[in-house]
């Protein structure tokens, strides 16, 4: 149980975030967003803005320098007159003060030739197509056996369509960049991101620089939830603004602008069919997903992918269809794929349990499998059943009356629900160095990102263990592209990927150490690329069980979660204290997904209407009453030197389904469209 090592710095305000770095002569940027949802920019009127005292520059498609193409069309800032979606950045102002920049941005007159935007996701949209792959490299469709026939013959059948809305990541710290060019043509970016190495490589490419000419500094990051996994246009607003003015430029994206420019989770429409025998053994599973991407760039959320590995069934099919709309490009948000997909699958499993008259935990146990159903690979470890059993015992599941809508406390209807959880145990190659200092301490460096997860603390524990020294002698430095190259803090793979490189570097250093350390210190480095290539083939996934106890006000349709319990099996837990925070954070976000979060697309104008935290609701403290996360011990030799699977995302997976299933148990009403709000629930009570 190790406290977060930088907690004192953070609570005293000493820890510096991107735009808090003091630099001489700083100027401020403000961005102008498109006020049409589709069209061409016919002119950019800058006269009024430039007349404002203190305005240094206005950048737009009429004067921006040419940028190189990257894999991400959202980064082609000011390179075209075409407006792809409302809210896209079309101009930026740099000024002496933030207030001047914002006022000048208001005065930039952009004229458009506009057309009505196409923004509505529908299951019958004529533009639906099959993508070649879904995020990151999964096939769009898979099939085994004859699912239609098997479903038609099944004794117990569930067929239902579930929808999830667009949701926004909304980290506490906005996307923010301080860009500073140097006389030698190099660029320093103090930036809020989930991976300094990736930002360095991408931004260098866009600006036509060598990666070595760009330094990205990000020791502290105030959250990301996936939205900072790749650089956003804000980095270029700052970098181009700084180049145009010869001044360091700060740009923190205002909360309202984040809703169009920093990513979100696609809305989904998911049709699921489950066919089982009378004992609940699945014979057919189909999961067909419809979701959106932008006209700029394809991003296909892998929503049906968890259905490929979750339960055994001989006949199965999954598919993803996308439509290109005049919307911002969707992107990663905590457990992309698993989060919306498992809401649908685990809701359907609950419906199947009700239809078959089988306890929902027992139903999941009966359909458990030791081999990944579609790939046939053995699981490196799979402790779903252990999580369900442990959770059931601690939650008091045995005493549960399965009948829906029969428990009352005054005017409140009470119910409980369960859902499975899963998330892949990814790893990517990483580098790291370990140094022995002459004073007896050790310095470990890796361009990892601590986005509030406790990564720095976990890596320090890992390094101390590998070096066989006490924690206080080890300093781990992260968040700087000058440090050894590291993969993104995403896909719940940070600790596993960086940690493996740290262990190997520390082992190398121990091999070099014999007695005293020379005055210049002693260093060893590691790169896990080859090690990962040589791994045995296993299906590697973490699992979990989510339990929810809800009350529903029969008069108002208000749903409150009285209690949540999550039990997970995620390999070795490096630091229980910060791990629990990660899991509880994920479960809390699951409460938001179940009951609150919904980005509302305006059909006429084509932008998200709720653009601040007063309108986009995330759970308040009062919504999180009693929440507990724990884990079963799991020792898996097929993972990495630490035996870790990753815990950043699994906490949200299944949480919304557990709550929705509990709402059904409380009321007898099955809400298949999230979030479960009074407007949706009350008319059906």
């Amino acid at each position, binding site marked *: 149980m190790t406290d977060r090592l930088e907690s004192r710095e953070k609570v005293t305000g000493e820890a510096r975030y991107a735009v808090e770095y003091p630099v001489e002569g700083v100027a401020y940027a403000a961005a102008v967003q498109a006020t049409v949802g589709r069209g061409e920019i016919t002119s950019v009127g800058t006269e009024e803005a430039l007349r404002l005292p203190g305005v240094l520059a206005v950048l737009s498609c009429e004067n921006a320098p040419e940028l190189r193409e990257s894999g991400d069309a959202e980064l082609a800032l000011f390179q075209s007159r075409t407006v792809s979606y409302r809210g896209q950045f079309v101009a930026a102002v740099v000024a002496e003060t933030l207030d001047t920049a*914002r006022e000048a941005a208001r005065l930039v007159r952009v004229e458009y030739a506009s057309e009505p935007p196409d923004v509505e996701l529908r299951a019958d949209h004529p533009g639906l197509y099959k993508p070649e792959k879904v995020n990151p490299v999964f096939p769009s469709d898979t099939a085994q056996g004859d699912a239609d026939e098997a479903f038609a013959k099944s004794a117990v059948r569930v067929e239902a369509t579930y929808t999830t809305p667009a949701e926004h990541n909304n980290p506490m710290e906005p996307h923010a960049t301080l860009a500073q060019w140097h006389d030698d043509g190099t660029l320093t970016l103090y930036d809020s991101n989930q991976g300094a190495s990736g930002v360095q490589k991408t931004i260098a490419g866009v600006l036509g620089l060598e990666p070595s000419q760009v330094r990205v500094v990000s020791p502290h990051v105030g959250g990301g939830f996936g939205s900072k996994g790749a650089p956003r246009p804000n980095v270029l607003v700052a970098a181009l603004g700084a180049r145009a003015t010869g001044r360091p430029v700060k740009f923190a994206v205002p909360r309202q602008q984040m809703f169009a420019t920093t990513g979100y989770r696609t809305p989904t429409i998911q049709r699921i069919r489950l066919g089982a025998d009378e004992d609940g053994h699945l014979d057919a599973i189909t999961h067909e997903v419809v979701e959106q991407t932008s006209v700029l760039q394809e991003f296909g959320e892998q929503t049906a992918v968890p259905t490929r590995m979750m339960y055994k069934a001989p006949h199965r099919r999954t598919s993803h269809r996308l439509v290109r709309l005049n919307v911002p490009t969707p992107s990663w948000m905590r457990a992309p794929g698993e989060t919306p997909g498992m809401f649908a699958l685990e809701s359907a499993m609950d419906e199947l349990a009700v239809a078959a008259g089988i306890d929902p935990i027992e139903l999941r146990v009966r359909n458990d499998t030791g081999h990944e159903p579609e790939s046939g690979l053995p699981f490196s470890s799979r402790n779903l059943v252990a999580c369900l059993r442990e959770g059931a015992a601690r939650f008091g599941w045995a005493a549960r009356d399965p009948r829906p809508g029969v428990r009352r406390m005054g005017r409140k209807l009470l119910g409980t629900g369960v859902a499975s959880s899963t998330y892949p145990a990814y790893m990517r190659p990483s580098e790291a160095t370990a140094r022995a200092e002459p004073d007896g301490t050790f310095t470990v460096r890796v361009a990892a990102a601590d986005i509030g997860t406790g990564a720095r603390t976990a890596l320090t524990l890992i390094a101390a263990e590998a070096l066989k020294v006490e924690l206080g002698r080890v300093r781990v430095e992260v968040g700087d592209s000058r440090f050894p190259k590291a993969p993104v803090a995403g896909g719940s793979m940070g600790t596993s990927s960086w940690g493996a490189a740290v262990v190997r570097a520390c082992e190398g250093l121990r091999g070099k150490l014999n007695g005293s350390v020379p005055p210049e210190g002693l260093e060893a480095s590691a790169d896990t690329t080859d090690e990962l290539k040589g791994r045995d083939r296993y299906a590697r996934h973490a699992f979990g069980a989510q339990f929810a106890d809800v009350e529903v006000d029969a008069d108002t349709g208000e749903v409150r979660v009285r209690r949540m319990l999550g039990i997970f099996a995620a390999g070795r837990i490096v630091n229980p204290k910060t791990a629990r925070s990660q899991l509880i954070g994920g479960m809390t976000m699951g409460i938001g997904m179940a009951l609150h979060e919904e980005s509302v697309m305006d059909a*006429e104008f084509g932008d998200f209407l709720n653009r601040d935290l007063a*309108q986009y609701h995330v759970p308040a403290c*009062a919504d999180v009453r009693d929440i507990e996360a724990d884990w079963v011990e799991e020792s898996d030799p097929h993972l990495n030197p630490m035996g870790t699977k990753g815990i950043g995302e699994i906490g949200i997976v299944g949480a919304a389904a557990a709550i929705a299933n509990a709402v059904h148990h409380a009321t007898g009403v099955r809400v298949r469209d999230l979030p479960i709000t*009074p*407007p949706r629930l*009350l008319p059906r009570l």
Partner: protein
Amino acid sequence: MRPFAYERATSAEDALRRHAEGAAYLGGGTNLVDLMRLGVELPSRLVDVTHLPYDQIQLDPNGGLLIGAAVSNSDLAADRTVREGHPVLAQAVLAGASGQIRNVATVGGNLLQRTRCSYFQDAAKPCNKRNPGSGCPAIEGEHHNLAILGHSEACVATHPSDMAVALAALDASVHVRGHAGERVVPIEDFYRLPGDAPERDTTLEPGDLVTAVEVPPLGMPSRYRKVRERASFAFALVSIAVALRVDGGVVRDVRLALGGVAHKPWRARRAEEALRGNPVTEEFFLRAAEAELEAAEPLRDNAYKVTLARNLIVRTLAELGEGT
């Protein structure tokens, strides 16, 4: 943000003198400053009225209150005489915003906060309230939390205040200092329905300064109940302020106001009339609710509010009736 002058008023006369065209009075600023950042409000001058001597709550011998306009929401909700004599008011204030916001938000500012309709808050979109004559996209657009009563073809916005709903039920009146002197405006005449001039939330004239809110004695049990998607820090879907006096199983007196349903706090006089003198039973509560909501004209996506308001009226009356 557009540059603006900031001035601190030293007296009501001074405030009125400084309040020229394009000026706005500044209380806690929790709504006004947000709207300035969004470019929705563009005052050329802010006249800070928080230092005027309107920061006291006075209790008269009969139990009536005179609440200074500069009293903070937190101080109002924490005041013992308010909590004891007018619990519905304290509960309503506590149901709004967050502790931090209530600490700086003032009573005057709370009365005058603007609608949270998404279209109003986006300066790049049409809105008859913000830009008269530009149209109301909410009627065909997103309106699940907008009005079901008293709206017009020009505007379907709701008033966001919780406190004002309690004040409407309490027959409060607003003390206003204007260029023509002082006047006392009953709260029902203070707010207006949108009609064809939704740019005007109230009947205040330019330069009018709210100095106090007068609340007559209540002397009967009261309650505020707010329904919202999350448990805290959210505007009402529907809220209700009720005061009820029962004698011998019969309603002797009742006050009922709804929030989140109209351009103003909605005093439910038809329901009150249907209740007065009738037995304290769910049947009569339902009859009263239906009498009030007969006039409801829900929009495409907010018919649930009619059900919600009906249930809230019945339930809150029943709960209050049980205790008497």
